[in-house]
């Protein structure tokens, strides 16, 4: 009986270890994804700032 409880505890601990390991990986992955997304979002903005001008509109006439 004692042996069974010990084996079960070990399996549980192993399971928890594996789960916690997976969750850590998930967090790391999501961080990586976020970084990638941030990079992807930032790149076009930099391009936009560097190369795109807007078409100016003439000033409004004085109001009378």
């Amino acid at each position: 009986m004692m042996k069974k409880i010990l084996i079960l505890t070990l399996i549980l601990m192993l399971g928890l270890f594996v789960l916690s390991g997976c969750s850590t990986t998930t967090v790391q992955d999501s961080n990586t994804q976020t970084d990638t997304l941030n990079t992807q979002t930032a790149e076009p903005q930099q391009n936009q700032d560097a190369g795109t001008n807007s078409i100016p509109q003439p000033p409004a006439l004085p109001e009378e």
Partner: protein
Amino acid sequence: MKKILIFLISIIITSAIVIAGGQIINEPATNSGLYDFQYSIHLYKGWNLISYGENFPFYMSENYVGRAIPLYEEVMEYIQIPGLNRKKADSPVFVYLYNPETKGYIEMFPENTLGENTYMVNYASWVYVREEYDIEYFAPSIPPLEDIKLLPGWNFVAINPHFEGNSLEDIKGTCNIQSVYFYNAEPDETQRGTNWKGIPLDFNIPSEIVGLGLIVKVGDVCKLGTVQTIPPPPSIPN
């Protein structure tokens, strides 16, 4: 009080201009009553209100001014970009004319929506540049003031050599002028949003602003021209 106001306005206007004016190429007396003029203008970054020249901004070439103009070179580089790759927004200069009939703008550059070789000699135009430039350009066949027709509402009027030394009171012709504004394009004024400066009708136009533009509001169709003041008849002796 009014004299002080005019003095202050003249200081504001003339101090705003680093370079404006130009030189006469042909006098009206020897050129069928028309001036041929070469404007010399300092353009500030952003919008400027200046007299329109023939085929502006193309006639800034060396043939006309005797030296290369950086803005002209940029315009030439821009128009040489093949059609599909040429982005309108990347133009080094934007030019608009105001149509008093429709009360809207006509684009003249980068896209000429009025047709090639259109020369609106009496008009002032909006010119937008991305940095400061000194430019010179040709304005041939400037007619007498009597040929400047104004329509009801705002009119963009070129300050041509006929204006120099005269007040609008002197040259209002048949016009009942309601208001006149000058656009001070200096960066400080642009930052404060105080570019428009009202001008009294008795303000004498100095040579420093010949080549710039005015907006003139009138109530009816009329023509500018020298006003001949006829003195009243002599009084009858007692």
